[in-house]
């Protein structure tokens, strides 16, 4: 089974691309496997090294590539990777004669925070297979077959708030991590589309869908024609899309 994917990501208005704290990751799509995993994460904007943390979470999730992921074990692994990279970052700053300032030290002591949504696909039948998704926070997964047949973990626009659940690089903030994890399983057919999105655009998608407006058809077309950037700016301008980092990954599974 092969992964066919399209990715669109843009920072919030007023920011440059390097400030975008969303991250999406998958293995090379060309390689055929009977098991494929992808992940998306949204680094908290009021935090330090959020991009590094969202990147570590997604890359590790894809590399773990397990349907029976133990979130505690997984997070501990990610924290080890983060600590290693954080130490290197501090070292580099010192070597460049630019040691951490007081506010960086205080923020670093608190840690980094991010959502995570990962999904694994297993090819178990001639027509498709099953998927299993794990989520912490408000990044979303949508499965489309003619219409939206799954919306996870959010399915109502009112559920989005300003304080989503987050995974922290500081173990002190992960005490009740297990209670923040949501899990969903389902089956897929080759040809189904899966969309992974960060919260602002997911909220727009859910609202549009609730109004019967087939938002996946709009995204499908704009992903093909490179029109998404203008469309996102248009939606931000009219106020129907919150000014936040936007990441949309469309994933389809195909027979070899």
């Amino acid at each position, binding site marked *: 089974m092969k992964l066919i994917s399209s990715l669109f990501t843009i920072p919030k208005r*007023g*920011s440059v691309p390097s400030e975008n704290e969303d991250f999406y990751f998958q293995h090379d799509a060309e390689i055929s496997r009977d098991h494929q995993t992808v992940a998306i994460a949204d680094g908290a904007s009021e935090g330090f090294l959020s991009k590094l943390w969202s990147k570590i979470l997604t890359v590790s999730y894809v590399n773990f590539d397990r349907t029976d992921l133990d979130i505690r074990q997984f997070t501990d692994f990610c924290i080890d990777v983060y600590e290693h990279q954080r130490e290197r970052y501090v070292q580099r700053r010192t070597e460049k004669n630019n040691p951490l300032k007081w506010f960086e030290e205080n923020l670093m002591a608190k840690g980094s925070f991010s959502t995570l949504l990962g999904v694994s696909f297993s090819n178990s039948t001639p027509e498709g297979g099953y998927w299993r998704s794990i989520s912490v926070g408000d990044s979303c997964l949508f499965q489309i077959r003619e219409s939206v047949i799954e919306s996870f973990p959010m399915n109502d626009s009112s559920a989005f708030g300003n304080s989503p659940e987050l995974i922290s690089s500081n173990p002190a903030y992960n*005490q009740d991590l297990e209670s923040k994890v949501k899990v969903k399983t389902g089956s897929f057919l080759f040809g189904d589309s899966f969309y992974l999105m960060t919260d602002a655009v997911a909220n727009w998608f859910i609202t549009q869908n609730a109004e019967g407006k087939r938002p996946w058809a709009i995204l499908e077309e704009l992903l093909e024609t490179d029109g998404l950037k203008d469309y996102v700016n248009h939606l931000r301008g009219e106020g129907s899309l919150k000014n936040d980092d936007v990441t949309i990954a469309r994933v389809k599974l195909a027979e070899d």
Partner: protein
Amino acid sequence: MYTTEISRGNPTCFLFLIDQSGSMEDPFGGESSGSKAQAVADAINRLLQNLVLRCAKAEGIRDYFHVGVIGYGAKVGPAFGGDLAGESLVPISVIGDRPLMIEERMQKVPDGAGGVVEQAVKFPVWFEPLAKGPTPMKQALKKAEGILSDWLNAHPDCFPPIAINISDGEPTDGDPSQVAETIMQLESSDGRVLLFNLHLSSSKAPPVEFPDTNDNLPDEFARLLYEMSSVLPEKIRLEAESEGFKVSDESRGFIFNSDMVKVIQFLDIGTRATNLR
């Protein structure tokens, strides 16, 4: 109203007016330890730190806010020390880079296993306690009016500036109500300037937080500061509510005789803006 995003391209400003009169040397809330001046200096330094941390990223501090501190006592004017002395409004990145000194303090943080541990954190100091002279609150508000007018001329579409006056409430230079009213009439395209007051009385009267009437206030100075306080906009009201304060649609940005924890909470709620972009 009060919905504009705060961004580097469209920042807002916070202005603190700090009573530095002789009476601020009295103990805080009738407690024996520490003067009101020391407690206020601690609260302002903590708030400035929180504002910097909210704007700090790996690539530096983003200038979402410009902040000023006006002291009033023996003299009236900008109260930052060190490199920032004499500055009325300073970008938050400059504040972050130039504290007067950095102390190391122990802070209780969660240990990850249900308990707390003490951890050393950096505690920058920008503002030192001072308690000398009369209480020229009217003059301080007049100064604030000038600073806020200039800001609004340069930033007509900003999230409305927030001014917070911290005093023990007995102005010595006449009734400041009219100037306060003028400040509360200043506006950007997103709403009027918000003026909040924090009254640290020397009396032992019970605390009052975010009142919607002046009925329970014990003296004329408390009632004066209540009248000089803006009604909370919805977003700030919801923040106060989520932190456990009892508020109504008419609640004002005013607290009387609260303990230091509530004072810090009040300052934090009063300056919280979730729309940082």
